[in-house]
């Protein structure tokens, strides 16, 4: 069995082994193996290519851009997605504009340990995908499975553009697969995680699993819920979403991030503008509450959508 976190470690090992242009740079990623051990033993296996960085997110990402200009393909680990705000300027103004301005590609992969876990609190729990997706010039991946964590990270390193790789901390240890995948769906293609005919849930990352649990529960009541795992939110596979809504006529978009202007809003906007006639009832969306992410498990468990709250929303949608 291999965990989501081990898949991320294995993908990095393969990228380092396959391509001498790849190196890893981030806080505590060297001998220590990273705060979550995503780079465990890599410094030993690839001497000089997995380096501890000073506590300087701006300089870490800025340096990766400079290295990319020189033809390298850096993998950057932000210790937590939340800390990428310190490197935000380099990501959105430098990395994201480089190719468009100068025709020089910027192949950097920025790993963001994302999303909430119980007890992590306001500054170690954030989901920042919508923020980065807003900027032109970036690709934003949000893998929900062990297989995607592995194959999409390898694809991220191979892509000639800056990739924001949002790996979900909640999935690190308890999401497991039999083995690493030998083939992969390309980025830009969503995955039909569960087939159904009564309603469509469009979601990504950890919320895929909450949505699948909810679909399982509603199946006992006779409802057949389709679940789409977007895999990447930019590009966003609108075609697969529209095809599903064409089958079910009902749409619920679910995300762990905050509600204002995020991924779920984008999904609803696209379906409303490009597939309004496919909808039998008004579409719905479910997000985290519009407050910072709370510390205590009781509050945190209510702040983000869960199988239970998704089911409540779905029942409302199905009754409409």
């Amino acid at each position, binding site marked *: 069995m291999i965990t989501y976190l081990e898949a991320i470690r294995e993908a990095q090992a393969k990228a380092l082994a396959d391509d001498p242009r790849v190196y890893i740079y981030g806080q505590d990623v060297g001998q220590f193996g990273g705060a979550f051990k995503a780079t465990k033993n890599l410094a030993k296996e690839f001497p000089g290519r997995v380096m501890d960085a000073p506590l300087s997110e701006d300089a870490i990402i800025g340096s990766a851009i*400079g*290295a990319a*200009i020189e033809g390298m393909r850096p993998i950057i680990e932000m210790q937590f997605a939340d800390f990428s705000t310190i490197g935000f300027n380099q990501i959105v103004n430098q990395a994201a504009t480089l190719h468009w301005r100068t025709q020089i590609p910027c192949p950097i992969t920025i790993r963001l340990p994302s999303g909430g876990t119980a007890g992590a609190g306001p500054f170690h729990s954030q989901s920042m995908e919508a923020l980065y997706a807003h900027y032109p010039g970036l690709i934003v991946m949000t893998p929900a499975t062990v297989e995607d964590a592995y194959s999409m990270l390898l694809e991220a390193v191979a892509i000639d553009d800056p990739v924001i790789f949002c790996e979900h901390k909640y999935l690190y240890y308890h999401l497991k697969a039999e083995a690493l995948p030998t083939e992969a769906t390309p980025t830009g293609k969503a995955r039909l995680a569960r087939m159904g005919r009564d309603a469509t849930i469009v979601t990504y990352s950890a919320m895929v699993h909450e949505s699948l649990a909810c679909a399982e529960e509603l199946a006992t009541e006779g409802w057949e819920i389709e679940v789409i795992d977007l895999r990447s939110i930019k590009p966003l596979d609108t075609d697969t979403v529209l095809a599903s809504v064409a089958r079910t006529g009902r749409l619920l978009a679910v995300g762990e991030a905050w509600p204002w202007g995020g991924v779920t809003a984008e999904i609803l906007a696209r379906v409303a503008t490009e597939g309004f006639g496919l909808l039998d009832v008004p579409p719905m969306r479910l997000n985290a509450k519009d407050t910072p992410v709370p510390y205590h498990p009781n509050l945190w468990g209510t702040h983000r959508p869960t199988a239970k709250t998704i089911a409540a929303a779905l029942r409302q949608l199905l009754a409409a």
Partner: protein
Amino acid sequence: MVQATAAPAASAETSNLESRFLAAYRWMLLARVVEEKLASLYRGGKITGGVFLGKGQEALSAATGMALRKGDIFAPLIRDQAGRLAFGESLLDCTRTYMGSRLGPMRGRDGNVHRGRPREGQLAMISHLGAMLPVVAGSLLARRFKGQHGTVGATSLGDGATSTGAFHEGLNLAAVEKLPLVLVVANNQYAYSTPTSRQFACEDLVDKAIGYGVAGHSVDGTDLAACLQVLDRAVSAARAGGGPQLVIASLLRLVGHGEHDDASYVDPKLRETPLGADCLKLAEARLLAEGWASAEALRKIHEGAERQVEDAVTATLREPFPDPNAEDWCALATRHLSEGSSHG
């Protein structure tokens, strides 16, 4: 740490100084002439956006560009026209970017001082001050990975940028990695309108070198010979493995932040101090006093510069602007992953 200040050139170096001084003067003058032309094109409505001049900073800038070699990396800032030319940027790259020619390196997608050819070591600055410092550090890190030794990277900043997080993070990272990076700070006394008294509280910016564990150099930015000497020393030390070098040059910006700015906030008394001297005029006086050039020779150099600028501007005026209908509006190198504007 090395505290270096400019000393008079040794006699053995005099003939070398003469040829380098004259070469630097040519770049300074060409920069001054093209910038005066850009200012007049701006006033005549031929340039959209803004024009940002380096008047008063040409000696420092030219010395920086000249201390570097082909194969080095240079991330210039706003007032580096002279250094860009000395490092190998063509006049056409300047006029085309300012005037929005489709044929320039930025193709109308970016303008004025935001230009470069990264693969040729000329990095294209973004507006966020200090932000290029970590990028240069990363390029040098990459060269170390590739086993490419003997090149250096230089970048320019102003006094204002020393207050940014990027300055701190970038210089510290370069120091930790002992990178061959030269950071040239033009302390031109004002960050836009903000005087240094509202910018930092240390007595002298060069003292910051101690805190970062890098070598520090001070230089009179109005004195071309001193700039040549100190920049050569700093770049050579970086090239020889001496780690990052912080150069602090004292001078006064003799123009506004941009041509839209009359710089009325500049203390008039400051203009009367040695800081307020025009480095180009001082260089000319020295050329004549030393007998390194005659008045006639200087007149010819000036005419040559005028002609080069006229040629570049005339050629650029005939060139096409970017065409929004021909623009592909794709920000990604990986074209098939682009969402385009189909969902907007």
